[in-house]
């Protein structure tokens, strides 16, 4: 009798503590998340706000430098207008350049990545292990080490300074980034392929008719990552195109050169902010709308190692 009572009481106590714990999590957890969200959004919101900042000095000139106050004294779209009217920093041109480069980069890279990933995952051939080891070893050399050699190879092909050169640089080595895709194809059961082979399907037929239609997640993952690359890279663009070749720059290095380039001007900061918003916007929209596939890719890649 005593025993059951004690158990009942114990249970109640435990329920009570669980409830307290629950409320603690709800209040404290959400509070913490709000604080974290503020920290994570702070630099981004700051840049957006600065891109709309329109302040004039005594001589009625636009003040574009970094200022110490957070909230602009005047708002407007003047920075966006200036962005497209600057004759040294031709942002509109850069934006189209980047779109051009990233479009072809994503087509070539996606083809390379998918074909290598599929072959490494599902086709058995003699030198497969050697290919795998070589790919791992090559990936370990720092990319910047060979950048200058790539520059001279392109020069021997008289391609330096041109956008096709940039497309080549971004996509030629793409075949080495096949791990995530391989992880995806590894999960497709082999029996599916074997039964198709018994039906007399060729390997190419299997790839085109069976594998590709079910590879939507990995195709999208590869497409997002390769498409985003040229919008973010400023180092290869700088080396291959060169800062003086302004008409052929891409957005990343173009904007970077506004702040830290040879002709940089600290009064261009708000213009830089406006440009940043116009670069980030399409990528963010693309990324957020496809985030499901991105998350799948990241998870697959990590667990497979």
């Amino acid at each position, binding site marked *: 009798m005593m025993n059951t009572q004690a158990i009942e009481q114990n249970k109640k106590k435990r329920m009570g503590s669980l409830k307290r714990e629950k409320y603690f999590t709800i209040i404290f957890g959400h509070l*913490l998340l709000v604080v974290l*969200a503020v920290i994570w959004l702070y630099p981004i919101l700051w840049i957006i706000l600065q891109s709309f900042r329109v302040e004039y000095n005594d001589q009625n000139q636009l003040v574009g430098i970094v200022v110490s106050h957070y909230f602009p004294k005047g708002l407007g779209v003047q920075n966006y207008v200036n962005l497209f009217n600057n004759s040294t920093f031709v942002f509109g041109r850069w934006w189209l350049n980047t779109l051009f480069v990233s479009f072809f980069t994503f087509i070539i890279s996606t083809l390379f990545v998918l074909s290598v990933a599929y072959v490494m995952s599902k086709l058995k051939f003699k030198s497969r292990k050697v290919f795998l080891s070589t790919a791992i070893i090559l990936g370990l050399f720092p990319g910047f080490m060979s950048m200058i050699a790539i520059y001279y190879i392109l020069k021997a092909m008289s391609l330096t300074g041109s956008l096709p050169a940039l497309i080549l640089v971004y996509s030629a080595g793409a075949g080495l980034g096949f791990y995530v895709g391989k992880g995806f194809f590894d999960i497709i059961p082999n029996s599916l392929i074997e039964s198709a082979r018994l039906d007399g399907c060729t390997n190419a037929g299997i790839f085109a008719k069976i594998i590709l239609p079910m590879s939507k997640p990995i195709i999208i993952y590869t497409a997002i990552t390769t498409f985003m690359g040229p919008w973010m890279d400023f180092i290869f663009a700088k080396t291959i195109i060169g800062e003086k070749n302004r008409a052929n720059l891409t957005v990343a290095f173009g904007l970077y050169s506004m702040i830290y380039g040879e002709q940089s001007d600290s009064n261009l900061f708000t213009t830089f902010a406006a440009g940043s918003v116009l*670069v980030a916007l399409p990528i963010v929209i693309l990324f957020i709308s496809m985030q499901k596939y991105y998350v799948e890719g990241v998870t697959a890649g990590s*667990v497979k190692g």
Partner: protein
Amino acid sequence: MEYPNTKKKNFFLHVGDFFLNIGKGFVNRFVKFGTRFKEGSLGTKMSHFIMGSGNFYHKRITKGIIYLLLQIGFILIMVLNPKVNNTPIGYKAIVNFFTLGTNEGGLFTGPTDNSMLMLLFGVVTFGIIGIFIFTWNSSIKSSALADQLKKEGKPLNTFKDDLHSLIDEKFHLTMLTPAILGVIMFTILPTIFMIFIAFTDYDSSVIAGQHLFNWVGFKNFTNIFTGKGEIAVRFIPVLTWTLIWAFFATFTNYFGGILVALLINNKHIKFKKVWRTVFMLTIAIPQFISLLAIRLLLSKSGPINTMLIDLGLIKEGIEFLGSATNGIVPKIMIILINIWVGIPFTMLMTSGILMNIPQDLYEAAVIDGANRRQVFFKITLPYVIFVTTPYLISSFVGNITSFNIIFLLTGGGPAVPGGYTAGRTDLLVTWLYKLTIDEGNYNLGAVIGILTFLITATGTLLTYRRSQAFKEEDAFQ
């Protein structure tokens, strides 16, 4: 609890196996050459000298012509030495590879030898020879195979059959060739070239095309320990900071990411998607934007310093990213800012893993009467750590070669007195970048690149050999 059994094989043994297999392959090749030449038909014997003759012998004309044309093309290149940018490819390129040019040229004597291009084209020519040997071997092989089929009374492959095999048994060749050509041109060739550069005296005093440079053996490497100059003074400090950075960057991100993921995935937390999207935003925004924004926010007279002064917390602006004294403040700031950059990635990854924890583990634990704390420390945490160990090591390796965060936040500064390239926060990779792209000290840059490779290679060998993915790959399929 039991995790999938990971049988341990010493990774040195694996490396040993790798080289042993290559050695065996070579020996087998040579033995094969002897027997093929002795026992082959006239066509096979002739194939050793004139490629494609075996195919003509077996009446496979198209294939024979292709092989013959390849051999003629190869001989033409080797003999005629076509010039690109005034530097020959062909047998002269091999000679040039060893001399690296002899004609220094005077002020008025016209163009001189270009050591850099000679080295590059030497490597290219070696590559062409390698590909030719491979083709030559395959021509003999194809003839020997035809001999064998004839002996067994089986029909020979027609050219049409050969083409068809490219979309079937040899589909891997069709799929891999374009990607591999790209990798050879833009990854393998440049990497081999730079490895050779590490053994030359190609530094900032040499302008390719105006001065020659020479082979110097291991001098650039031994200079680290014995010599004077930048690499001897700065290598150890930069390496130390690189390792410290990689350690802190990896672990802060890893545990931070796990904690954030656990928080968001807690069943009492609402608006999970919103929180996740907030963190995702920082992945989508190019780092040159977000990191430059942070750099400007933190500048000495920037908004954050002003705010702190207005609040009365400090009297004078703090040099968050450029303290002139010993670089401790920038180093700490870099690691802190890296948390901002890195947590979203780890958070995403661990979120996926948390959702995939096998439910029966939890059920078993609840039946055994475990409370929530026990469940967390005995199941959730060990599971996540177990599954992500390979990731942990590979992200350590990745952090060793991370570039953007240092380059965009401090540019490697503050500078070290003495006029050295490497500043206090430079990592091996940013130092490499400055040495090659900014200064033209290509040989030093290449040395740093090779040493970085050795460090990351050690780490990666450990990862791949230990990770279950690699071991159980064959069992899994």
